[in-house]
């Protein structure tokens, strides 16, 4: 199956003329999504990723962040993670995996009424620390947990 053609048709149908422009390479998707923090996702170590994503790497360890993840993940491609922040005024939750090629995994920004809770599944290349940074009231709080990975989830 010609996958390129497929995705071209899909994107065109989804966003009309805009999709055509993207598909034809007139506008690179990167330029379209300026809001996505490219530098932060391209950072190769945890501290610079935090700094690029949140403006500062100055974090305080907090016991009010509950990080739920398996001790041993048999399959690194699917590691379930749940973060609960009890810190009042949680603005965002950032997930990082220290030994992945790009540690920054995701940033969740809480809108009006949203609670400091997020649950998702991530890929981990090998045994490493899972770092969570919570932004609340302009300050950064962190928590971490080591997850042992038996089979990596990146590369092949």
């Amino acid at each position, binding site marked *: 199956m010609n996958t390129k053609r497929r*995705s071209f048709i*899909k*994107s065109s*149908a*989804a*966003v009309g003329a*805009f*999709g055509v422009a*993207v*598909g034809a390479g007139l*506008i690179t*998707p*990167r330029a*379209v*999504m300026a*809001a*996505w*923090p490219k530098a932060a*996702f391209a950072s190769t170590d945890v501290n610079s990723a935090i700094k690029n994503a949140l403006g500062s790497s100055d974090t305080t360890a907090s016991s009010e962040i509950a990080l739920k993840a398996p001790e041993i993940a048999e399959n690194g*491609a*699917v*590691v*379930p993670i*749940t973060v609960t922040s009890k810190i009042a005024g949680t603005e965002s939750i950032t997930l990082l*995996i220290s030994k*992945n*090629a*790009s540690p*920054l*995994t*995701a*940033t*969740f*920004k*809480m*809108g*009006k*009424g*949203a*609670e400091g*809770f*997020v*649950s*998702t*599944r*991530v*890929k*981990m290349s090998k045994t490493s620390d899972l770092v969570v940074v919570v932004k609340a009231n302009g300050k950064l709080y962190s928590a971490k947990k080591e997850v042992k990975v038996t089979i990596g*989830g*990146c*590369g*092949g």
Partner: protein
Amino acid sequence: MAKSIKVRAKVKGGTTTVKALISHAMETGMRKNKKTGKKFPAHFIQEVTCSHNGNTVLSADWGAAISKNPYLSFKFSGAKAGDTLKMSWVDNKGESDSVEAKIK
């Protein structure tokens, strides 16, 4: 692409719990095709937005390390049963999808 998102939202005691599954390859750009030795090009969701009554309750920036067919769950307050929740995503190729669901 119309049905790439499955959303369930339920109110309990004033808090709405949202659970979503998105069907997406989430290709990191580092996985190799064993036959050709070439890398599969990166193709992953970059932005996910969820809104209720026009208010954005959650917006997320994702990297390639989110698992294939992503699962996302979060909670927020202020909604009641019957309200509409809207969720959308955009990936690094500019593809996108959105869905609306009734809160139960």
